[in-house]
């Protein structure tokens, strides 16, 4: 009876379900994988581990892929930091009416409003922001090299502050992905399910469940060394997570933070919930932070962002500024509150 019950809980595998995907390709033809990876093995290993800064930059396939990953990451981090700074600035008058808006904050809010083509916000900040020299903000300078560790900007009028345009300034222009397996390796599994176009929590849960059911029901076929390779590198788990995180970023772009939060949360490998691993990419944490911020859960956004701090496991120089902006916003939102504590 027990066996019958268990069998009833186990979907019948489809013939493959993953045909044409890069995961199936690697499992079926490990020699092709080796031919691609072996000439630049350290770079591919770093890419698999999401250690993008350890991939030598350049026109090699892993170099272009790492640049694309960083560009996507900086897009989300820019969204996080800019939104946090703008929300902090807009909330200052009501949350701290007895304290003037700091000069750096009004100047930052004006520049960000301009960059976002938000003319109404720019008009609000223009009379209040001090004039600053052209080129003060990173985004107005030639695209900077990524610093090993970002430092605050110091200005005689604005004081010391974290430049909120740094992630936008660091973001590389989009480049064409390499052809063939080199362009798809460790990437998503597109087209397996249709994700909803609305921000409906249950609908996006159902879509993610459908993706899982598809992957669970699929099977990889190939020689022993191909299957061992897929297992050792967690290729299915990597591809699943990447599919969900990409969908999360797409949901953010489409103004669907509830679904973005769900997809990123669902992608997370909780055997290492505060670490960057092949499954838990930096983009996963950035998406969690951005979605929580959009939903008003600022303190929860900090939990995700903390993983990416330079002294944390994610180790990205531009995150310090985003973290501090989010921290300021979290403090602002609790400024009038009374703390509650409990034992256990």
């Amino acid at each position: 009876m027990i066996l019958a019950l268990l069998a009833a809980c186990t979907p019948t595998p489809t013939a493959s379900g993953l045909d044409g995907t890069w995961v199936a390709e690697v499992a079926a033809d490990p020699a092709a994988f080796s031919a691609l990876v072996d000439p630049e093995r350290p770079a591919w290993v770093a890419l698999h581990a999401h250690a993008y800064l350890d991939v030598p930059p350049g026109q090699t396939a892993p170099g272009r892929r790492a640049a694309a990953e960083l560009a996507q990451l900086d897009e989300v981090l820019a969204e996080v930091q800019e939104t946090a700074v703008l929300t902090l600035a807009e909330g200052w008058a009501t949350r701290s009416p007895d304290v003037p808006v700091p000069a750096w904050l009004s100047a930052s809010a004006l520049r960000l409003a301009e960059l976002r083509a938000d003319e109404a916000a720019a008009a609000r900040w223009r009379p209040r922001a001090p004039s600053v020299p052209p080129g003060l903000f990173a985004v107005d300078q030639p695209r900077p090299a990524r610093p090993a560790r970002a430092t605050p900007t110091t200005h005689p009028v604005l004081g010391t502050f974290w430049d909120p345009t740094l992630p936008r300034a660091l973001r590389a222009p989009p480049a064409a992905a390499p052809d063939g397996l080199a362009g798809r390796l460790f990437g998503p599994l597109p087209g397996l399910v249709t994700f909803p176009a609305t921000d409906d929590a249950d609908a996006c849960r159902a879509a993610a469940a459908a993706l899982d059911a598809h992957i669970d029901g699929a099977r990889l076929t190939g020689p022993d060394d191909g299957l061992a390779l897929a297992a050792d590198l967690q290729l299915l788990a990597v591809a699943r997570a990447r599919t969900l995180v990409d969908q999360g970023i797409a949901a953010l772009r489409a103004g669907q933070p509830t679904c973005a939060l769900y997809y990123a949360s669902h992608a997370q490998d909780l055997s290492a919930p505060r670490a960057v691993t092949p499954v838990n990419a930096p983009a996963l944490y950035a998406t969690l932070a951005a979605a929580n911020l959009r939903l008003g859960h600022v303190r929860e956004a900090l939990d995700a962002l903390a993983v990416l701090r330079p002294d944390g496991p994610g180790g990205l120089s531009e995150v310090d500024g985003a973290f501090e902006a989010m921290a300021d916003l979290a403090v602002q939102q609790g400024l009038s509150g009374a703390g509650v504590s409990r034992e256990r």
Partner: protein
Amino acid sequence: MRTLRLPRRPAPRLAATLLLAVAASTAAASQLRYAEDQAPGIVNPLYTTTMAETRVAELVFESLYADDHTLASVPRLAVSGELSSDRLHMTVRLRDDVRWQDGAAFTADDVVRTITAMKDPASASTEQGRVAFIAAARAVGTDAVELDFVRPELRPEDKLTFKILPASALRTLPARRTDPFRLKPVGTGPWSLVKFNNDNSILFAANPTYRGPEGKDDIGITEVLMKEVADKNYQAKLMLYESVDALVRVLPRDLAMLKNSRKVELYPYQTNSWWYAGFNLQRQPFDDLRVRRALTEMVDVPGLLAPIGTGDTITGPYVPSSPYYNHATPAWPHDPGDAASLLTAAGYTRTGASWMRAGRPLSLTIVAPRALESAQEVAINLQSQLQAQGVEVRVDFLDDAAWRQQVWGERNFDVALSQWTFDRNEDIREQFHSAGTRNLTGLKDKDLDALLDTARDAADPLTRKTTLRDVHQRVHDDAPMVFLWTLDSYAALSTRVRNVTVHPFTFFAWAPEWQMQ
């Protein structure tokens, strides 16, 4: 050719082990069964001390203002509030369509009586600090309350989030923790307490007179059953085999297993929690900073953490993702050599296997709550680490009543091992200010008090943030506790429960919207 499939399901042997449990506990279709390590002893918001008590209070009681889904304070039992221009007074208009679960009308008298009881020192309410900002409260008719504040308040609605009790329960003051109300609570909230069962479970039923926000009166879950499952290791298995629908806190080691189940969703919850081993500074030799530092440096914190799960070690009274965590504060090193030097400077000599001073060995008793998950493992390992370095250590595990009596009442402990959980404000003032009502260690540091006062009174976020980072450093330097770690903290809910959003602190704040499939 071989076939590889993702292992996403529990091992079959677990199914065999728990099949009977599944069959024995089939729940009503709209009943939510959730597990706690220990059943709350009372349901009275005036005396809430643990998160388990906070959760049941959330089912039964409401507050004047509450968090909406963006965590902004919105009227709940209030309709509106009008703040005076000097910000020292507020008139709160109350809803006129709310009834207590015994049928009585909710009125201004209930609010005034609750505040009065909380403020009354003789009541010894654990929530006294939450109303300290209110100087006086007066009823204006039945549907309005006037509040006077101690100092100007910018957004007092952010503080008016404590639970309101019926005046009928507070006719005689001071209130007492032992009042019969604790077992027969009457609230205005979405569920009412039906009964405490003999198996330590508590049954709540949907309140038919509940009036939800914005006309949302319907409650998707008709019954809530709190089940005590003392064996934490068993909880995840009960979840996997649908014997419970929710776990409020999953053991870190069980996270990956539950994540791989299609029947379970995990939600970050109670993430602002950290563990500590707090010294009693009112006792010798723990009043001596050198002794506290020595004992701190004897402890291998990562070594204590490793067996119980994944998390981050901490250097002070915040979790590392907090805005207030001072990342420039280094951890005290695990350095037995330096610890020995510190004890020598404090007058101890190593004699044989023990550190001795004035003919007496350095000895201490560690007390820990019996119901705290993993506390036994941690306490025993801590005992082992200290004993190996010449400290005599005894360990006592206390039930809730004994903990309240011995630790909080009598202050009869050397080292208390436990955990604090904070809401998103992460306000540690009560724990570390000389006048704090939850200052377990008895720390008294005027400079620290001044920093905490500055942070409390800060009018802008930048001042509060930098000041509390200084507080982190100062508390670390005072070493009133061995600051241990924050664990990865998630709640689990069955996928049968739909439309779920979990409040990051109270858990059930938005549960009236949940639906059972």
